[in-house]
C-alpha cells in the first residue's frame, strides 16, 4: 500500500468529521440519558387474565396454594385407601386417615361400628397379602398390633354404647364382630396353607389367633351385661322371638346359598362348603339349645345361646362368601406364607 494516490485518498476520507457543535450536542444527549426504571409493560388483556388477577389480588397465596395442598393431600388420601401394609401409603391410612374418620364418628354406637369395620378391614388386608404371598412377619405384626388396638377401642365404645342404647343394638355389633373375626380367621388359615394339601395347618398364624381371641374377649366381656338391661321397651319374649326369626331367616338363606354354589371343582372349595355346613349345624344346635332353655325358664342363658347361634350363622355366611371369593378370583390360592 505504497500508492501515493491511495494514501492521499484515504487521508481525504479521514478528514470527514463532525463539527465541534455536533460532537458536543451528541455527547450531551448521551450523557443526559439515564437508565429507565425497568417496569414491565402490562398487556391490556391483563384485565381478563385469571392468572394476573390472582397475582394482583395475591389470591394465589390464599386460594391456589391451599387448593393445591388439598388436592394433593386428597389424592394421597384417596390412593392410600386401598393400600396394604407393604405400601408406603399404608402409614398415612392407619395413622392419619382412619383416626380422623374415627374422630368424626360422634356417637359411641357409630364409633363401635367403625372400629368393628376397621378390624374386618385389617383381616381382609391380611387375606389379600397372604393371597399375594406377601404376608411376612413384619406385615403380620403390623396388622396384629392394629387388630388389638381396634378390639380395645371397640370394647370401650361398646361399654359407652350400653349406657345410652338398648342391648339389642350392642348385641348386633358384637355378633357381627365376632362372626367377622372368626370367619376371616378361618379364611386366612385356608389361604396360608397350600391348596394341594387342602387341610388347615396346625400352626395358625398370629393374625387369625388374635382375631379369634378378640372375638372371644368381646363376647365374654359383654356376656354378663347382655340381659341386665334392654327390657325397657319390649317384653322379653318379644325380643327373643324377633331375634330368633331373624336367625332362622339367615340360616335358610345361607343353606340356599350353599345349595346354589356352582360345581365343586377343587378340594379347597369342597372344604369351604363342608366347613360352612358344619358352622350352619352349630348355629342350628345353638338355636335348639336356646329353645330348650326357654322352656326351662332360663331366659338369660336362652338369649345367650341365641346370640351364639346368630354369631355362628353370620360367621358361616361370611366364611362362605369370602372364602369362595378368594378362591375364585385367583383360581387357587398361592398360599406362600413368607418368613422374614
Amino acid at each position, binding site marked *: *500500500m*505504497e*500508492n*501515493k*494516490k*491511495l494514501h*492521499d*485518498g*484515504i*487521508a*481525504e*476520507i*479521514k*478528514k*470527514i*468529521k*463532525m463539527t465541534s457543535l*455536533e*460532537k458536543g450536542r*451528541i*455527547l450531551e*444527549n*448521551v*450523557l443526559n*440519558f*439515564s*437508565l429507565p426504571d425497568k417496569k414491565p409493560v402490562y398487556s391490556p388483556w391483563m384485565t381478563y387474565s385469571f392468572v394476573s388477577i390472582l397475582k394482583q389480588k395475591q389470591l394465589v397465596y390464599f386460594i391456589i396454594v391451599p387448593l393445591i395442598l388439598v388436592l394433593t393431600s386428597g389424592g394421597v388420601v384417596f390412593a392410600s385407601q386401598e393400600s396394604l401394609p407393604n405400601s408406603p401409603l399404608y402409614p398415612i391410612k392407619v395413622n392419619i386417615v382412619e383416626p380422623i374418620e374415627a374422630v368424626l364418628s360422634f356417637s359411641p354406637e357409630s364409633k363401635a361400628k367403625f372400629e368393628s369395620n376397621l378390624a374386618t378391614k385389617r383381616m381382609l388386608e391380611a387375606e389379600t397379602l397372604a393371597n399375594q404371598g406377601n404376608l411376612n412377619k413384619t406385615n403380620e405384626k403390623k396388622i396384629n398390633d392394629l387388630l388389638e388396638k381396634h378390639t380395645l377401642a371397640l370394647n370401650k365404645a361398646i361399654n359407652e354404647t350400653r349406657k345410652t342404647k338398648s342391648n339389642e343394638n350392642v348385641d348386633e355389633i358384637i355378633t357381627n364382630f365376632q362372626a367377622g373375626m372368626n370367619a376371616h380367621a378361618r379364611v386366612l388359615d385356608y389361604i396360608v396353607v397350600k391348596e394341594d394339601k387342602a387341610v388347615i395347618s396346625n400352626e395358625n398364624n398370629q393374625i387369625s389367633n388374635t382375631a379369634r381371641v378378640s372375638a372371644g374377649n368381646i363376647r365374654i366381656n359383654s356376656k354378663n351385661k347382655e340381659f341386665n338391661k334392654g327390657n325397657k321397651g319390649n317384653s322379653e319374649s318379644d325380643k327373643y322371638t324377633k331375634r330368633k326369626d331373624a336367625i332362622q331367616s339367615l340360616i335358610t338363606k345361607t343353606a340356599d346359598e350353599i345349595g346354589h354354589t356352582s360345581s365343586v371343582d377343587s378340594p379347597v372349595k369342597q372344604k369351604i362348603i363342608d366347613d360352612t355346613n358344619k358352622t350352619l349345624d352349630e348355629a342350628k344346635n345353638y338355636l335348639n339349645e336356646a329353645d330348650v332353655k326357654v322352656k326351662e325358664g332360663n331366659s338369660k342363658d336362652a338369649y345367650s345361646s341365641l346370640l351364639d347361634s346368630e354369631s355362628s350363622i353370620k360367621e358361616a355366611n361370611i366364611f362362605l362368601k369370602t372364602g369362595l371369593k378368594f378362591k375364585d378370583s385367583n383360581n387357587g390360592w398361592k398360599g406362600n406364607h413368607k418368613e422374614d
Partner: protein
Amino acid sequence: MKAEIKQTFEEIYESESDAIFRFCLVRVSNREQALDITQETFLRLWQSMLQNKEILNNRAFLFTIAHRLVIDWYRKKKSFSLDSMLNHGEEDGYDPSDEMTTSRLELVAEGRYLLDKINELSPSNRHPVYLRYVEDLSPVEIGKILGISTNAASVRINRGLLELRKKAGYNDDNK
C-alpha cells in the same frame, strides 16, 4: 463510580466518535441520519457501561453497533420506499451521491474518486477494505464486526485491495 464510567466514556467518545460518524455517513449518505446513528451507537455503549457489562474491545463494539444500525436503517427505509428500493437495489453502500451530502463531505478529487471506487467493489470486499484502510481496524476486529472469521476477513481485505487497485488504476502508478 458513575464519574469514572463517565470519564472513560468521554475518552472513548473523543477518540472514536469521528470514525463512527464517518463510517455512518459514507454508508447512509445523509449527514443528519449519520449523526442520529452515531448518537444511537454511543448511547448503546453508554447504557452498556452503566449496566457494568463487560466490553472487550470498545472499537469493535462501536463499529458492530453502527454496522447493525445502518442495516436497520436501510431496512426501514426500504419498507416505506418502494421506488427507492427499485432504484438502489440492495444496500446503497458508500454512495455519497446525494447532492447535499456530497457538498458537505467537501472531498477533494482524490478522496471522492477513492470513495467511488470502494463503492464499486463487490459487496463482500467493500466493508473489509474500508474498515482496514480507512479506519485502520485489524482483521480480528473486522471479523467480529462483520460476523466472519479472522481468516475470512484477511482474505476479503487482500482480494478487495487487488480489486480496488485494478478498478482505480493504481497499479500503474509509481510506488
